[in-house]
């Protein structure tokens, strides 16, 4: 087989020579290696203070998007629930009433929208299925919790802050603030 890296080394079954049988020189060799590791850069990331930078294509917690006027984009078409291989998404549709045009973008909206984060496999198919750009996956991970109930995220948990009424929270959620979710401190 063609070697993919230049690191593989065929197994050497030749009998040990005198120096190898003496054992101690080989031990010293090993000890030099470990000693060198003593001064190497450490791989640890000090988690709560430092955070690992997420990849650009990282698929984290879901966010329900709003348009630039702060209206919910979701029309409860159910395509995301259909696309979901883990069946983690459920929703209930409702009709937009008169006077709710500033809340919902289309005539139909999701009255209830739930994602079970314990079922979700973060494949991102819901994001791809959505015709309205309403659901997308953010660069955060689902925080740990003690109760299973807490992992069923409701619409209130998922909705992005309104860009009109609360612009700061919106900017923060969008990750527009520099270095918010990024690795702080030196590496």
């Amino acid at each position, binding site marked *: 087989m063609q070697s993919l890296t230049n690191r593989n080394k065929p197994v050497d079954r030749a009998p040990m020579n005198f120096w190898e049988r003496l054992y101690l020189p080989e031990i010293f060799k090993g000890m030099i290696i470990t*000693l060198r590791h*003593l001064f190497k850069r450490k791989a640890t990331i000090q988690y709560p203070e430092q955070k690992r930078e997420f990849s650009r294509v990282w698929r984290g917690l879901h966010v329900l998007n709003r348009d630039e006027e702060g209206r919910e984009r979701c029309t409860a078409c159910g395509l995301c629930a259909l696309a979901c291989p883990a069946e983690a998404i459920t929703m209930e549709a409702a009709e937009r009433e008169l006077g709710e045009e500033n809340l919902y973008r289309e005539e139909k909206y999701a009255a209830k929208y739930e994602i079970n984060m314990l079922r979700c496999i973060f494949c991102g198919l819901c994001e791809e299925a959505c015709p309205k750009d309403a659901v997308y996956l953010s660069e955060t991970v689902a925080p740990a919790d003690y109760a299973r109930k807490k992992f069923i995220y409701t619409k209130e948990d998922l909705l992005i802050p309104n860009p009109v009424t609360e612009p700061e929270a919106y900017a923060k959620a969008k990750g527009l603030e520099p270095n918010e979710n990024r690795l702080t401190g030196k590496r």
Partner: protein
Amino acid sequence: MINLSAVLLAFDWGFLLQKLILIIIIVSVSLVVAMYETYLERKVAAWMQDRIGPNRAGPFGILQPIADGGKLFFKEEIIPNTSNKTLFVLGPGLAMLAALMTCAVIPWSSHLQFGDTTVQLQIADVNIGILYIFGVVSLGVYGIMIGGWASNNKFSLMAALRGASQAISYELAMGISLIALLFITGSLSMRTIVEEQMKNGIWNVVYQPLGFLIFLVCAFAECNRTPFDLPEAESELNMGYHQEYSSMKLGFYLFAEYINMFISSAVMATLFFGGYDVPFLDESTLAPNVAAIIGLIAFMIKIGFFIFLFMWVRWTIPRFRYDQLMNLGWKKLLPLALVNMLVTAAVMLWLHK
């Protein structure tokens, strides 16, 4: 009545008090050193594996050993129903006792001078210091053996047997490598050996490099440290002889190992590396108190190096198989030590002619 009071008056109470204070200080220092060895072990292990190690409890994780110890104290104490309860409790106690007793004959430094009184920084300068250490170290096997047997668990028993046979096998080579050293020094007293090295200005390791190497390897085996930590082989014996132990009884076993490490480092530094001797420094020109403190610091640095060596080796090499262990002990180290002894004897005889 008169006799009794005469005896009480004749007794040197100041001397007793002085020794008592010294004992308390030395024992607590060895306990603290053992505590921080556990911290250092975790740090060294982490560094060698490109990690950082404990750093959350206090600055740099300095309080980590206290947290560990506290955890062990608050754990549930389990004594198995089928165990021999007396021996089960006795086991860790014996291990701890044997570990702590060895520090009695180690000369930590020269002497302090308070006015007229001279305080030797050594609990007891017995003229058979090395023999005493050997005797007490052999007692340490009882801690392992009794603990393993009293657990009434086949894995513990097997581990204890392994530990005992290993300690006995390696004690032989260790003793013989020391005999060669004794040919040169001509004394069994630890203080005399150190003073001789100070006088000559040449450490014993120069005369006895092979003897030192054998002693070092045997010390690793005696302390049950990698690559000779077969009594604690998790993969084949679950946990080793302390499998049934919990809470601080387990802690005592682990602690005894670290104290043993500290003491054997001290013994190695004393016998082969000049003890509290500072190289290229004439201690006799200094005030006795200054010399004693400098000597103590030098001694601690030497001990620290050996402790680091113990850890360095532990995190570098895997453990031996049992037959390899026995082969090394009986077929390699023992003949080597014998040859070393005979050659030293011959050379010493020739030099004295």
